[in-house]
């Protein structure tokens, strides 16, 4: 079986990056940046998730089909979020509509 064997060093590097991300997100949350707090928080979270998916979950060395399936989850998620928010965010824009 020819699954890619990643080096232990790489795993420790990814681990270190995940810890740094966690510390960073806690530190930034203790400072009031207004709406920027959410931006930083989510950017760090997505970066951490990406590191786990690419390296710990071996997608980095996976087949094209694995990339497509893993990616499709997030595509459907974006569709669900954008359609639902398109409704919620636009309520009350038209006079007389429900809020």
């Amino acid at each position, binding site marked *: *079986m020819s699954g890619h064997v*990643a080096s232990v060093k790489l795993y420790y590097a990814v681990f270190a990056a995940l810890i740094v991300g966690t510390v960073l997100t806690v530190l930034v949350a203790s400072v009031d940046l207004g709406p920027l707090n959410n931006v930083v928080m989510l950017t760090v*979270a997505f970066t951490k998730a990406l590191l786990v998916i690419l390296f*710990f979950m071996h997608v980095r060395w996976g087949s094209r089909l694995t990339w497509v399936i893993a990616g499709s989850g997030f595509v459907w998620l974006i569709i669900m979020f954008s359609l639902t928010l398109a409704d919620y965010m636009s309520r009350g824009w038209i006079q007389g509509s429900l809020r």
Partner: protein
Amino acid sequence: MSNAHSEHYPGPIHQPPVHTDRRTDAHGHAGDHRKLQHHFDDLEQQLEASTLGMWTFLVTEIMFFGGLFLAYLVYRSSYPTGFQEASNHLNVIWGAVNTIVLIVSSLTMALAVRAAQTSAPPKIQVGWILATMALGSAFLGVKVIEYADKFKHHLVPGPNFVWEGKYPQAAEIFYSLYFCMTGLHALHMIIGLGMMTVIAIMAWKRQFDASWYTPVEVSGLYWHFVDIVWIFLFPLLYLIGYHYH
């Protein structure tokens, strides 16, 4: 109707199994590997199919948790200040400790898969799996402490919910989402621990080596996914009120 059908039913087709020498195991010898199922050409194809199967399941899991994250987003955008006030009552230290615990468990899981991939001795494989299980249990232990604290302080939504702050209704919605999201996540951790138990026994019985380690790989994917869910839950639940006093 049913009679006519049975008359024309040709019955099972008996064909002699076709043997070819095309298949070889990982060592290049003729004959099938003990773990190769007959409907796959080789072990590589078999691993690929299992990995894709797990990823397909994980896509449905992304949508499953996605619905809760969406509910969170909708309510938080309706009650931004109320959510901040409610979030302030969660213990950031416990949340951060649990985040670190889960990240370490993801590392030990990745190393458990690697141990199987490199045909490490069963002791080492089992060691990494047990380390992962210990960390997973530690996570759940912290969750028990936190939940007990919420019960004690009447922060469980329902008739006994008490909120001293300015936004009791928003706080109740926040804590409903908190219990749904972390509860579903904890359930996934418990299922993960069950999977790890099976994997640990298999590893102890010397089932895994470089030629075949599919169950470790696939369980690892699940474990990492559960970690990723927490990576989002921690900041969204614990940290939104951290600067709000």
